[in-house]
């Protein structure tokens, strides 16, 4: 498959990530650090490189600088990255109106690469895969669209776009975030189209005045309603959408438990000194990137690059982004501490599973979840 067909990928990386609160205040969601040394976007970029898909267009809109600087030309992941921000034409200039509009306005990228197929992927998911199976399913079924799907807990199903399929894998129904899900098969928001058919579909969607120009809300349901051949390919590995603070924390805790696939994920980094544990330090059930110094107590947490945890500090159920300093005797439970922040001596910051302490990236400030009090 890798050698037989030309495939270009379009990564949807322009969303604001409002549900991640302070974590996306200064950077796009895909650039948010994850598991100590990675960024969220590393997962999709690694998957693309591993699948031999080298032509990768990255659709950006919200705060793209950190992301574009980080990805650069894509060499780290063995891809050729092109950034696709909104642009003006003779007709005027507009922001992207939705995921389908963003792809429509950048489909020329895929066409210019001479791609037979266009793979549309999100940049806010944690999983490790090779897209070859997905592409093979698409070609063998001569489908109009093929959707990557994953089985989820029925109780969580109402958070996703839910697919109904027949025994041949053809999709017979699709509901976006249904209150009463009819199946446990969730769309991963990853689609393959023949490039020429994708143009037809998106041109129709552009003309539709009632459309919000979104794949999940408009394009996929319309395709199924209009009798297009939509096929499902089931992914059976670890997968988590990290679009919300809660799901981000869940995925981080999964990484600690070894559930989340980190081995083989490529990240762009420079060389760093090793990590150190002081004589007063202790760490249990945690992951810790290089160049950190731990002389406090750490339990069930993710410790990023260059983090310092001083004597007497206690960090539990938390994610500490690179470069943060946790001063003496500070106590953190269910916190996310942003990069280069300082948690002052004796601070007590306690969140819980659903409302933990988010932080403002890079500003050296920290919000308490209960009171929104700023501690500097």
């Amino acid at each position, binding site marked *: 498959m890798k050698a037989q067909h030309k495939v270009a990928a379009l990564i949807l990386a322009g969303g604001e990530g409002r549900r991640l609160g302070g974590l996306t205040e200064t950077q796009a969601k895909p650039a948010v650090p994850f*598991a100590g040394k990675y960024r969220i976007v590393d997962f999709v970029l690694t998957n693309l490189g591993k699948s031999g898909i080298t032509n990768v267009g990255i659709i950006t809109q919200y705060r793209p600088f950190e992301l574009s600087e980080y990805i650069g030309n894509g060499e780290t992941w063995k891809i050729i990255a092109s950034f696709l921000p909104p642009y003006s034409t003779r007709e005027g200039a507009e922001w992207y109106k939705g995921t389908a509009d963003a792809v429509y306005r950048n489909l020329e990228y895929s066409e210019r690469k001479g791609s037979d197929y266009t793979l549309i992927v999100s940049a806010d998911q944690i999983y490790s895969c090779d897209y070859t199976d997905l592409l093979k399913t698409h070609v063998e079924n001569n489908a109009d669209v093929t959707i990557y799907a994953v089985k989820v807990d029925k109780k969580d199903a109402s958070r996703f776009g839910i697919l109904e399929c027949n025994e041949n894998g053809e999709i017979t129904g699709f509901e976006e975030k249904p209150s009463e899900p009819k199946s446990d098969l969730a769309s991963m928001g990853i689609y393959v189209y023949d490039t020429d058919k994708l143009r037809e579909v998106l041109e129709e969607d552009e003309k539709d005045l009632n459309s919000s120009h979104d794949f999940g809300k408009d394009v996929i349901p319309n395709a199924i309603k209009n009798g297009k051949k939509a096929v499902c390919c089931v992914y059976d590995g670890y997968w988590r959408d990290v679009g919300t603070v809660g799901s981000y924390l869940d995925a981080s805790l999964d990484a600690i438990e070894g559930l989340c696939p980190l081995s083989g994920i490529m990240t762009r980094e420079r*060389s760093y*000194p090793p*990590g*150190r544990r002081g004589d007063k330090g202790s760490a249990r059930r*945690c992951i810790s990137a290089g160049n950190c110094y731990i002389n406090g107590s750490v339990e069930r947490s993710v410790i990023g690059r260059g983090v310092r945890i001083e004597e007497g500090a206690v960090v539990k159920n938390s994610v500490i982004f690179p470069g943060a300093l946790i001063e003496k005797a500070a106590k953190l439970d269910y916190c996310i501490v942003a990069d280069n922040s300082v948690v002052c001596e004796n601070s007590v910051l306690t969140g819980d599973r659903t409302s933990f302490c988010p932080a403002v990236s890079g500003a050296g400030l920290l919000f308490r979840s209960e009171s929104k009090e700023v501690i500097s």
Partner: protein
Amino acid sequence: MTIKGIIAGDASGATLYGTPLPLCFIGGSYRIIDPSISFLSRICGKIDVVCSCFHKEIERYIKNHEANRVSSLVSVIPSGYVYGSGKTLSFSELIKASAEEEDKTIDAFAVCSSNVVFNENAGKIVSLFEKHGKTLVLSNEERTLPFFLIEHDLLIYYLKKDQICGLPDKGNRYFAEVFAEKVDGERDYYDMNMRFVNEPLLCRGLFEKEDDEIISSCYNAPPAAFGENADVSSAVFTDGCVINGSVKNSVLLPFSRIEDGAVIKNCVVLPGRTVKSGEICENTVVK
């Protein structure tokens, strides 16, 4: 002043625990060759690592080195060693191979061995050399270090007369204030690694200086993972380690695993090694 760096990559073909000596890990995430590369990268426009053997291994490592991130600063020059023939080139022959290639655009050469661990302010060394000229040898109170700066013509002259080995005795000496260690064998290797645990401030001063830090090559590994029963104090650890036992006063090199119930004290655990449940290791290199 245009300076070319020459690192004698591996004149002796020595290995430690099956790894070419210059590529052995020290202090967690560095290799023995890194201090030489880091120092020369601050004063040289080009660096040749000349090797009589292991050039493929060294080349593979250099390819992704931080020093080569922006431009190809460091190259590996194999010097015609034929594997299995038993022939290795001498230190001076290696230097000659690199130096004779260069034309007059090079003002001076900075020559050093790959198995000396040191760091010093590069700008200071160059200004001393410019002031005193001809040759400058780096040494500390204990020994003359296998590092010198020499003018282009003078190096060629000594090479022609085959007097390069005695050169350090002829130059102006500059005494380095920081420590410098030569790593030649297992004992040196263990001691050098343990200094990162026992003398962390000294090692940080040597390796993590703000403007003169030691740079290395990235390797792709997940962050270190600490399990439910991990009990770790005074230790250096690296990406890829998995720790679920007791670790005290030790250096854990990449991808080492300490299983639940294992006890490590005053040890250097080599890359990829597993200390199994129930094993107790003390004062040793875990092979």
